[in-house]
C-alpha cells in the first residue's frame, strides 16, 4: 500500500475533485432552501435560485424607476472604477517608492521605519479621517484602497529588490550602468512581474476596503447595494451580488496572471 502522500490523482480526476466542494455547497443550499420555503413560502433567508434570478434580472435588465439606470451594471461600473483607480495608483506608488527603498540606501534609511509604521495602521481606522478630510466622494474611497494596498506593495517590492542577487547589480555596474540605467534596464523590468503578482494578492484586500467605504458612505456601488438591501433582508439580491463580486475578483486575478505571463515570459522559467 503506497503512502497517502505519494498517491496523486490524474489531472482529470483532480479537476473533478476540485468541483466537488462547489457542487456540495450548491446542493446543500438547494436542500436547505427547499425545506425552509416548504415551511414558509415567504421565507427570506434562503431564497430559491428562481427568486434570485428574477431579483437580479430586475436590477440588471430593467431601468431603475427613479434614475433610469440599470442598477446592477451601474453598481458594477462604479465599483470597478474605484478599484481600478485605487489599484492603479497603488501600482505606480509602489514602483516609485519600492524601487527607491529597495535600491537606494539613503532612501531606505529615511523611509523604512515610516513605511513600516504606516503599514501597521489599520486602514479602516483611517476611514473617518479620510471622510472628514477628503469628503464623501470618490477620492476618499480611492485613497482608502491606496492606504490599504500600497504599503504592502511597497514593502514587498523593496524586499524583492534587496533579495536580488548582488552579482547582477555589480555586473551592471561593471558594464558601466548609471543608477538611472540600472533602474530602467535591470530593476524595473525584473520587478514588474513581481509587482503584478503583489497586485494579484492585493485584489482581496482592495475589495475589502472598497466595500467598507461603499457601505458607509456612497450612493452606488456593489458594496453600497448589498448593505442597502440588507435592511429589507433581501438575500435574493445579496447572495448573487456576493457571487458576482467573487467572480469579478477571480477575473481580475486571471487577467493579471495572463497579462504577466504574456508580458514576461522569462519570469516563469526563472523562478
Amino acid at each position, binding site marked *: 500500500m503506497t503512502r497517502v502522500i505519494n498517491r496523486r490523482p490524474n489531472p482529470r480526476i483532480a479537476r473533478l475533485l476540485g468541483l466537488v466542494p462547489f457542487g456540495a455547497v450548491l446542493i446543500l443550499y438547494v436542500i436547505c432552501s427547499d425545506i425552509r420555503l416548504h415551511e414558509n413560502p415567504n421565507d427570506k433567508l434562503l431564497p430559491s435560485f428562481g427568486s434570485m434570478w428574477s431579483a437580479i434580472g430586475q436590477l440588471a435588465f430593467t431601468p431603475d424607476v427613479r434614475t433610469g439606470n440599470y442598477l446592477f451594471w451601474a453598481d458594477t461600473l462604479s465599483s470597478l472604477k474605484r478599484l481600478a483607480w485605487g489599484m492603479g495608483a497603488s501600482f505606480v506608488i509602489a514602483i516609485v517608492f519600492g524601487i527607491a527603498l529597495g535600491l537606494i540606501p539613503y532612501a531606505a534609511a529615511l523611509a523604512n521605519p515610516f513605511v513600516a509604521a504606516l503599514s501597521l495602521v489599520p486602514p479602516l481606522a483611517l476611514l473617518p479621517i479620510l471622510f472628514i478630510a477628503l469628503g464623501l466622494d470618490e477620492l476618499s474611497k480611492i485613497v482608502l484602497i491606496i492606504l490599504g494596498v500600497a504599503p504592502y506593495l511597497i514593502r514587498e517590492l523593496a524586499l524583492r529588490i534587496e533579495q536580488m*542577487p548582488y*552579482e*547582477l547589480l*555589480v*555586473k*551592471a*555596474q*561593471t*558594464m*558601466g*550602468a*548609471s543608477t*538611472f*540605467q540600472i533602474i*530602467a*534596464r*535591470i530593476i524595473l*523590468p*525584473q520587478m514588474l512581474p513581481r509587482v503584478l503578482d503583489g497586485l494579484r494578492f492585493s485584489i482581496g484586500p482592495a475589495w475589502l476596503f472598497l466595500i467598507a467605504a461603499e457601505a458607509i458612505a456612497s450612493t452606488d456601488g456593489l458594496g453600497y447595494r448589498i448593505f442597502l438591501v440588507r435592511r429589507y433582508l433581501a438575500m435574493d439580491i445579496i447572495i448573487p451580488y456576493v457571487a458576482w463580486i467573487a467572480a469579478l475578483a477571480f477575473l481580475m486575478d486571471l487577467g493579471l496572471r495572463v497579462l504577466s505571463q504574456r508580458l*514576461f*515570459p*522569462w*519570469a516563469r*522559467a*526563472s523562478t
Partner: protein
Amino acid sequence: MSQISIKNVWKEYGAVTVLERLDFEIQSGEFCVLVGPSGCGKTTFLRLLLSMEPITRGEILIDGVKIASEPARDRGIVFQRYSVFPHLTVLGNAMLGVELAEAKFGGHLFGRKRGRARNAATDILGRVGLGHVLNHYPAQLSGGMQQRLAIAQALLCQPKILLLDEAFGALDPPTKTQIHLLMLELWKDRGMTVFMVTHDLDEGFSLGTRVIEFGKVRRDPQAPDAFGATLVRDVDLRGQTDKERSLSLASWERNTKSPPVVDMFQRGRS
C-alpha cells in the same frame, strides 16, 4: 592590455584582519590565477579588485591609476552564478553593454545604432557558440551556455581587465574543458589581462600564465584573527607546455603543507 599594481593592501573587518601586506603586480596580458583553500581571502581580494568594498590600507592601481571606488567598466566580471540578466534574451544580454554605453539616458538604442550593437553582439555570440539561441532566455540555456554568454557580455564592454570568480566552478567536466579552450582562445586573441579566482588547482595550472596563492604566514593562537593572509606562493608558467604545466602542478601539490589550523581563520568569511 593593462597592468594591475597591488600596493601594500590590507583588508580588515573591525579587529579581524583578512588580508595583509599584499604587494605584487599583474603584468599586462597576464592570465593570473589565484588559488587557495576557502577562507584564505580569495573572494575578499576579488571584492577589493571590483571595488565592492573599501580597501583598509594601501591601494590598487590599474595602469598607474587608482581604481574607482565603485565597480566600473574597466573591470569586467564573470561570476559563478547570476552573471546574466534573466529578463533579457541572449542577444539582449550581449547588447546591453553597448546600449548602456551609447544610450546614456535610458539605456535603449534605436535604429541604426541598435543595428550596429546587434551586429557586434551577434558576432561575438557566434564566436562563443551561441549563434543559434539568440532569442532564448538564460533560463532556457545550460549552465555552460550561460557562462559563455556571461563571458561574451563582459568582453563586449571591452574591459581593461577580465575578472573570473570561480566562473567555471559549477560546470561539469566536459563543459568545463570546452569553455577553458574558448577562454584561452579569446584571451590570446585579445591579449587581455585576466585575473581568475578558483579553488580548482587543475584549472589554475592548465589556464594560467601565473598561479598565486594566499595564505597565513603569521599566526597567534591566542588571537587567530589578528593576522591576515598574504601572498605565499607565486609560480610563473609562461611558455610552459601542457606537460611542464602538469609537472609544475605536481611539484606545487608536493610542497603544499597540510593547511594550518583552518577553522581558526575561517570564521565569518568564505
